[in-house]
């Protein structure tokens, strides 16, 4: 009995300790911090060797050589370290991590996630006639007898709303779990700012959000609602929710069977949404299938007026051309996401002045991407080609983390011809500019937010790792602590 009580006390004590430690880190200190390192990549001029960064009140106060250390400052000296701005992923996706109580999730342990479901699904050959789908393989039920499994095996939740094909009035921030483990993994990879982009399962999806990956909860959200995301190509028709019921079993065609099933349909929904918005503005009625929801109209009009930015995801050359054609029709400015075959549209992209958020780089696609038919012609030297064509581009790892995360994307690009300077710029200063955060993030310069990473050596070295990460002047990750 006594030992039991001891164990309980010990466990409680540990929980409390962890908790108070977390508070200590969260509260942090906004006092003056000085970082000394072997080299500082400012992205705002030439690198500074043997430099010092002075941070006060969460912002960078001074950068240079031989700066005086202010009185009482905390000095973080890493004589071999290399400082860069915190990396920025301009097209990140955060796993929704719906709680386990979501009815009957088939996987044991851990939190269910869309990626995991899709990964499990992709790991099995569902076209094999001998293959029998089970809840574990993530397959769809094959007979009405399996119907109780249907609700358990379908990924009925994504972080973008599925009740309509046009939902620009919905916010991605609402579906982001700030406690997601993804943020810790991003931090470990040196990523301090992410733009969380909407899912590609709708033609016109929700509005993305800009977040810091660490620090106090109250300072995590940089911008709640940013660009509207449109998706062209196969994703909206492949990944949207559909009615999985066998013929004659299910209800009559519902909102689940309204989806476009072809590229033609996707393009039609895109055009109809904007034409319907214009009709409403002109005081005319709208009608027909795939009408945008009432609440979507004001946002669509803001996009047309250029007040809300637009992003379009397109992978294949023909989809990129479609994006250029559609935006020309409505005179829209946009940013291209993913752009796997951008190397086949370089003159057109250059002429249209479209910035590209390229990535991820891969030879063999994984996860949900492997389920699409849009991954047969990837090229590792795409970033190099974009750079040579003079197109403004950022690199993204999207849902990939750890060994495939953002810094590895930059390394792969360097391996295929990009210079390290260009690659570093593509994960810091350029994404900051594309997010409208120039001079606030992505550079080491006076006045910018003190989002910094001290790497153990040159950041794009294969053996380099983040030793210290700061966000808004707070140490959020420190090796050895």
């Amino acid at each position, binding site marked *: 009995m006594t030992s039991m009580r001891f164990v*309980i006390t010990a*466990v*409680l004590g540990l*929980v409390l300790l*962890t*908790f108070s430690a*977390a*508070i200590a880190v969260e509260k942090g200190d906004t006092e003056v911090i000085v970082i000394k390192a072997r080299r500082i990549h400012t992205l705002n001029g030439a690198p500074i060797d043997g430099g010092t960064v002075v941070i006060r009140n969460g912002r960078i106060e001074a950068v240079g050589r031989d700066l005086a250390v202010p009185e009482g400052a905390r000095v973080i000296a890493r004589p071999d370290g290399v400082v860069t701005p915190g990396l920025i992923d301009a097209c990140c996706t955060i796993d*929704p991590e*719906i*709680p386990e*109580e*979501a*009815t009957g999730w088939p996987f044991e342990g851990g939190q269910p996630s869309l990626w995991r479901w899709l990964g499990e699904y992709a790991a099995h050959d569902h076209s094999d006639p001998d293959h029998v789908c089970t809840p574990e393989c993530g397959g769809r039920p094959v007979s009405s007898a399996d119907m109780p499994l249907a609700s358990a095996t*379908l990924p*009925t*939740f*994504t*972080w*973008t*709303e*599925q*009740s*309509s094909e046009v*939902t620009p*009035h*919905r*916010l*991605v*921030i*609402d*579906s*982001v*779990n*700030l*406690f997601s483990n993804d943020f810790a993994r991003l931090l470990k990879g040196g990523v301090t700012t992410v733009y969380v982009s909407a899912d590609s399962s709708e033609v016109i999806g*929700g509005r993305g959000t800009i977040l810091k990956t660490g620090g106090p*909860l109250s300072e995590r959200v940089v911008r709640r609602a940013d660009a509207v995301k449109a998706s062209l190509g196969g994703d909206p028709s492949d990944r949207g*929710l559909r009615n999985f019921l066998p013929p004659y079993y299910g*209800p009559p065609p*519902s*909102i*689940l069977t309204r989806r476009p099933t072809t590229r033609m349909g996707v393009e039609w929904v895109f055009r109809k949404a904007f034409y319907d918005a214009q009709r409403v503005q002109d005081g005319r009625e709208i009608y027909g299938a795939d009408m945008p929801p009432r*609440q979507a109209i004001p946002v669509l009009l803001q996009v047309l007026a250029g007040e809300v930015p637009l992003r379009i995801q397109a992978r294949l050359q023909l989809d990129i051309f479609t994006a250029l054609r559609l935006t020309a029709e409505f005179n829209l400015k946009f940013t291209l996401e993913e752009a796997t075959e951008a190397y086949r549209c370089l003159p057109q992209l250059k002429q249209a002045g479209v910035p590209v958020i390229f990535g991820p780089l891969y030879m063999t696609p994984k996860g949900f991407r492997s389920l699409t038919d849009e991954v047969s012609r990837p090229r590792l030297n795409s970033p190099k080609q974009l750079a040579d064509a003079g197109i403004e581009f950022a690199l993204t790892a999207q849902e990939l983390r750890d060994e495939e995360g953002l810094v590895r994307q930059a390394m792969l690009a360097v391996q295929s011809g990009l210079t390290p300077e260009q690659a570093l710029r593509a994960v810091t200063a350029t994404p900051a500019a594309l997010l409208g955060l120039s001079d606030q993030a992505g550079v080491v310069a006076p006045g910018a937010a003190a989002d910094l990473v001290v790497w153990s050596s040159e950041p794009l070295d294969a053996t380099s790792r983040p030793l210290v990460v700061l966000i808004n002047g707070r140490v959020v990750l420190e090796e050895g602590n």
Partner: protein
Amino acid sequence: MRSSGSIGVSPVTGSIGVPPVTGSIGVPPVRSCLSLPIMAVALSAVVLLMTASANGQADSARRVLQAAAYVDAEGQIAKGGVLVIDGEKIVQLGGDPPADLPVDAYPGAVLCPGLIDCHSALGALGGLSERQQAVQPRVNARDAFDRYARQLRLALAAGVTTFALAPDDRNLIGGQMAICQTAGPDGRPRLLTNAGPLKLSLSAQTFRPDRDPTSRSGALGLLRETLEVLGVGQSSSFAPLGDDPVAAFAAGRLTGFVTAPGGADVLACLQLAQDYGLRLVPIHTVDARRVAETVAGRVAGIVIGPFDLTTGQRAAVAAGLFARHGTPVAIAGGLPTSPPDSLRLAAAVAARAGLAPPAARRAITAVPAELLGIGDRVGELSAGHQADVVVFSGDPLDLRSRVLAVYVAGRRAYWAQAAGEQR
């Protein structure tokens, strides 16, 4: 619980069967007259006068409950369990009771306020969620309340006197909760008020593939739209009525109980409360470690549970963590799917995992009463409160303690001795 069949008062017929009693601990027969059908009001008045005079008592509506100790307003077990009841109310606590009153004596026992389950499905007949759309502002759980449900007797015998019947977690706005009692002045379960808190849910059960919303962003977006439309008084997909519970909720006059299992859900609650000036109570929260400090002072309270002995440590420590940071904690039982004693069991599990015992006692009495907006009526043993009293053989948190008797609105609605529970 083998008691229910043999209990004197039958909720089905409403007939009177107060257990045969002897001496001063008996129930005065006068109370029985009050429970006769209304049609016989005149007759009962006559009988009441007759029986009262036959008993020779000056004031037959008054009586004394005598035990060794009682649970005080702070949740502590205090010495001196003397309680004077007049009609439905407590009129005196402690001190010397008037000499000539009948006494219900429970030597060695502890008097506890009637237990309150602030989120339950007790007595529900049929489902507790409409399925066509996720916003159901005018649904009221009172319409699902079956006062003849047998579970109500089991709950009463476990000491649960008050409970809030709530729409379930499958709708964004599920409807209004109904506050009910497992017994009333006539011995039958009753509806206390249909104006309970509004039930909302941010749980994943809200997302359904066959209607809006299908996702978290859809759910929160739809909720904000509903609140904004109500805030500026425009019509939307539904026209707000003057006394619409959602309108009262949007104006901050009505509490909303929001199912928020995860830390992210709780953060969403805080944001909503801040943006729209709402009075919110997150419920079913298991994710305390990351939000307990943030939540403090920003919600009216928090509802934890249900728990049982298989509950993981992460959920079990939640109550203690929230309480330590100053958030009032109420505990919900799992009735009727769990055993009748589950409310008390949940409090004991929470206490074992770090919730201070006085707070654990208050978490199933005073705090839920406060969160339900009936704190001035039930949940405490003090003069002026309704006489809802559970007589435990010991500390209510000690699972060995038995329920000896339960009084609701001044009437002994359950008596273990009469129910054959004597040990």
